[in-house]
């Protein structure tokens, strides 16, 4: 297969020393195996996520994503925009669709972009990395590269919110998407198709402002994984990963639970199955160590 190239929007959490930096490490390893080249959008900016509304309003918020699209259109005119972060993908795709649907909004957005000499057409596809994997390569192709099947690991596929709603992955249902389960199985691990909390919200940005309420949600997500006999949770979203992983100590302290549930990215599963080392798969970035993955990577 020829090398596939995409205009890549990494997002704030992927940056060195940021919360999702190990996601980026594993994505790079996975892409190398799959012969995918990610061309970073030059000088990209934050998408404002979904919490930027209070200060940003509508047009300034959309303008942020429009700037990224404009820069992508300039630098990689023939490549789809791809994001790995759910919020980045959602904000960018939402902006694209609103600009496409509303001529006045398009006009106003370009008026704003003109202040920096930019212009947006919003005519590119805006895709999540998972879509690239499923649609451009397919499960069969993804399976061909497996060198170390993840045998004996039971994994709960936690899809969460923003890769699932409102757009979601084509062909999947909002209430019971199965692509993570299929990916998990393609990598040789066992999935948990009836995982009850697979699309439950983790609290998102409210993990900071409403910690107790959010942690109650996270508690349910982890409990359901334990109930299903899962060894670890896999997710496609950096906010999900962080919220479900890093507060387990606080939840344990408050509720007397003994959670120690590793939470990994799909790209980490794939990198390990494709033969990467633990470090290349970003496993050193997990606070709760995914021991079984480390073992396989170390073999």
């Amino acid at each position, binding site marked *: 297969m020829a090398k596939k190239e995409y205009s890549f929007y990494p997002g704030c959490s992927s940056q060195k020393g940021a919360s999702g930096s190990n996601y980026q490490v594993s994505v790079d390893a996975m892409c190398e195996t799959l012969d995918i080249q990610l061309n970073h959008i030059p000088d990209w900016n934050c998408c404002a996520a979904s*919490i930027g509304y209070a200060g940003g309003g*509508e047009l300034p918020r959309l303008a942020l994503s429009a700037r990224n699209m404009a820069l992508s259109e300039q630098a990689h005119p023939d490549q789809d925009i791809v994001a790995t972060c759910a919020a980045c993908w959602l904000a960018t795709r939402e902006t694209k669709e609103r600009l496409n649907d509303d001529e006045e909004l398009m006009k106003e957005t370009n008026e704003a972009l003109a202040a920096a000499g930019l212009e947006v057409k919003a005519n590119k596809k805006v895709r999540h990395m998972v879509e690239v994997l499923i649609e451009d390569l397919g499960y069969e192709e993804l399976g061909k590269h497996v060198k170390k099947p993840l045998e004996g690991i039971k994994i709960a596929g936690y899809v969460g*919110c923003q890769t699932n709603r409102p757009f979601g992955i084509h062909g999947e249902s909002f209430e019971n998407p199965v692509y993570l389960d299929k990916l998990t199985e393609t990598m040789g691990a066992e999935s948990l198709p009836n995982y009850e909390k697979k699309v439950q919200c983790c609290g998102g940005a409210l993990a900071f402002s409403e910690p107790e309420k959010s942690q109650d949600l996270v508690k349910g997500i982890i409990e359901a994984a334990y109930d299903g006999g899962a060894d670890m949770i896999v997710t496609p979203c950096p906010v999900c990963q962080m919220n479900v992983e890093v507060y387990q100590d*606080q939840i344990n302290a408050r509720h007397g639970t003994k959670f120690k549930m590793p939470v990994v990215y799909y790209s980490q599963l794939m990198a390990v199955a494709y033969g990467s080392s633990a470090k290349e798969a970003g496993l050193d970035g997990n606070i709760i160590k995914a021991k079984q993955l480390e073992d396989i990577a170390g073999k």
Partner: protein
Amino acid sequence: MSANVQAIESYRNSFLKEVEANVEEGDWVKMCMQCGVCSGSCPLGPYWEHPPQEIFMLIRAGKREEVLKSSSMWMCTSCYNCIARCPRELPITHIMHGLATYAERLGMAPKNQPTRKFALKFWDNLTKKGRVNELKLGVSLYFMNGFVEGIKTALKAMPLGMNMYKTKRLNPMEYFGGHGVKDTSGLKAILKKAEEIELAKLKKTDA
């Protein structure tokens, strides 16, 4: 307002029209059919002073202050479950964000609502350099309720921070500089212009 005047104003279209003119996706409010699926689908549903279904009805009943001063919209986690499930396909998440923004602009939003504070800080943080600085955001968060509270919160969060640091997912050096876009002036110009356009469009209200 006397009880009578209130009655005369109740269930009129005036506030609805204001919302339609000034709130993101506000046009959709009238299309709610009051089924309540949004309220039942919200992960933080029990914590809303008025769940989305009620917010829509309050708008239609003309209860301007009850809506705009409410902490309700600030409970939205942006999980989009309400959008996915709304049988009338209302963009409920965006309407809630839009109402929050509008209340903020009118100075009616509840001052100490924690998500409001966080959302504003987030925006400040990202607009400074064009990218979010997680550490600065976090530190400012700890102190958003004052210095002493902040120290306490920070101490509580210490183990978490240490974990993040140890796994190289938190970089203390970020505090002094860190990531950002190169063309900050361009970005700021864009945002300034966008805000200008948006504010100019706001319909003046008598309130």
